[in-house]
């Protein structure tokens, strides 16, 4: 089957999981509201109300307004944070993982291994605290709040009510509109949260990639490539990398939900205005409907990420397709 067939198949498989998530969320609604009416009827009407757009209101001490507005405001920030973290995880993780495997058992390799182990084991908020202490308190370079100073936003035409246009992501919009001061500030306030989020997973990727690389480099077709006289660099680039990426990718698939959890924690610690922050604030203020809607959003994010990962798999590995 070709790639497009595979993608379609994958999307179809994702539907039951999505339905399951919506069912679960709705079950919780049902419990909150008291178990009166017919479950299926209520489920159906709730689903249709989802698709028609929400007008329910939410009322927390930092945000008041409609939930759909909240989602437009917060979701892009969360996506921006995740993507930034993912980029960090990918580039730093793969580089150090390959490096570590090539210079196996050297001093640097051992340092990387040890550091990765501790970074991976410690809970996320500890790393965040450490980073805040180092960069925010002592070195005083980076802001330890994810929010932008509202004074900066005065007089800016493309920003209103907390939402920036057109992409709703402050950093990108600032760049689009050429306002580099705002862009730089946005970048700085993105930096610490993204690094704290990414660190544990970089460590995980390094550990997985290192092990994977070591076992791939042992394989016969690598010897065959050497037998063809290819340089080490060529062998790693063309053969080893591709074959070694599976283990970290699987690991990543299992830890996506961990990444999203971490996202919630990081956003709360740094007051970064994203979905996770919205979620915790809603809970603390007992805005149950907002909570459940956010849960749904997270479920969708997760399923999309898994689908993307599977497609990535299929692109790299022809064995899946044929």
């Amino acid at each position: 089957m070709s790639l497009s067939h595979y993608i379609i198949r994958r999307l179809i498989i994702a539907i039951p999981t999505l339905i399951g998530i919506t069912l679960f969320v709705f079950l919780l609604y049902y419990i909150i509201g008291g178990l009166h009416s017919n479950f299926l009827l209520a489920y159906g009407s709730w689903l249709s109300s989802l698709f028609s757009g929400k007008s329910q209101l939410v009322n927390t001490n930092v945000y008041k307004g409609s939930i759909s507005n909240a989602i437009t405001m917060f979701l892009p920030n969360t996506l921006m944070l995740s993507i930034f973290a993912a980029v960090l995880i990918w580039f730093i993780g793969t580089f150090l993982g390959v490096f570590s495997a090539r210079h196996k058992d050297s001093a640097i390799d051992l340092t990387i291994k040890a550091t990765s182990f501790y970074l991976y084991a410690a809970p996320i908020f500890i790393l965040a605290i450490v980073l805040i202490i180092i960069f925010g308190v002592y070195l005083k370079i980076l802001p330890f709040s994810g929010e932008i100073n509202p004074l900066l936003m005065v007089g800016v035409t493309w920003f209103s009510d907390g939402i920036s246009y057109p992409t709703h992501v402050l950093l990108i919009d600032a760049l689009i509109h050429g306002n580099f001061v705002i862009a730089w500030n946005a970048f700085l306030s993105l930096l610490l949260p993204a690094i704290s989020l990414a660190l544990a997973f970089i460590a995980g990727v390094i550990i997985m990639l290192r092990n994977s690389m070591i076992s791939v480099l042992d394989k016969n077709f690598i010897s065959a490539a050497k037998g063809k006289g290819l340089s080490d660099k060529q062998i790693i680039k063309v053969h080893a990398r591709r074959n070694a990426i599976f283990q970290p990718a699987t690991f990543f698939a299992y830890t996506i939900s961990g990444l999203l959890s971490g996202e919630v924690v990081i956003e709360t610690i740094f007051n970064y205005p994203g979905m996770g922050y919205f979620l915790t604030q809603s809970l603390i203020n007992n805005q149950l409907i907002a909570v459940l809607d956010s849960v749904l959003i997270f479920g969708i994010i997760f399923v999309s990420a898994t689908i993307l990962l599977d497609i990535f798999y299929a692109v790299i590995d022809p064995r899946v397709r044929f």
Partner: protein
Amino acid sequence: MEKKELVKVKNLKVVFESRFDRREILRGVDFSLNTNETVGLVGVNGSGKSTFAMTLMGLLPKNAKIVSGSISIDGMDMLVKSVKRGPYDRKSDDALINKGIEKLRGRFITMVTQEAASYLDPLLNVGYQIFESVLFHDEDRLIKRIESRDALNNDILSKYVKLLTAKDYNGADKFLDENFNIYVKEQILSIIRRDDLTDEDKKNLILALGRTRLNSFQRFIISNRSLASKIPGFSRILKRLLYEEGYRLAGEILGLMGLDTSILRMFPNQLSGGMLQAVMVASAIINNPRVIIMDEPASSLDPIAQYRLFNLLNKIKKNFDLSLILIAHDITLLSRFADRIVVIEDGAVVEAGDASDIINNPSNEYTKNLVRSVIKI
């Protein structure tokens, strides 16, 4: 052609060492290979044949050590003292490593292994894996092929085909040498040498060579390729051109072997063991090496594929300046293809000499057993 010693091995000793024991695999092996010669290396399983091949290629596993001896290829010494300390060694390593081979692998000397499936990258198509060594070592050859095809004069080409139709083979050969450069010649000859095409097909294919032209953009990129490789969009076009030529070249080799070019874009998991073996052979010969080591190439092949393989080897030997080291445990196979035979038992050479001498008058008991053990049809 002057006869030269291409490979000379003296007193090679290799051991396998693990944490608990140490085994001598090669106990002082002497070996030599001259130009245009096929030497067969024969012995039962476990006698050290494969280890010998791996040592020559510098592909020994980590727990194997070259203890002593000398290897010289094309007159140059290969072995040097190993200076790197392994992480688990208490004292420094006294072994030798085959460092010199690194520059020769893939160009001067290539190897075909026993079991092809695990020696191919499962994620890349076989066509790429065939032309990979040409792409890496000899990109120029691909470029020159493209350029000379682009510059072909169709009139000259049709004159050549007329000579072929008239069965004036001598005249055709002369014409070929006089009018075409080696890159075109190579492409024409690879069509002619194929067994699986009719004369008519061959003529059409030759004429078709003159009809593939580049557009001016592609020509520009090729003539300025050092610059183009640095610009993202252009480098991709350059890569595409090179890959296409690579597939073409790989297809020619496969055609020479009597195989269909449809397998080029397939992946190893889609092909049978025999096909994969053929792919390995193709990748070994594509870069025109001087020496090819074949480690039991026929063991996973059916009789027809075996026949095809050795037929091909003969063809190559005739047309290229090639020496072969054939490793097998079936001595009669070697009797048909090898000029000399070296018999190895338990890591040491017990008998060596001309093929016919060894087969007909084996002096050693072990050799006698090998000869006797083959069932005569």
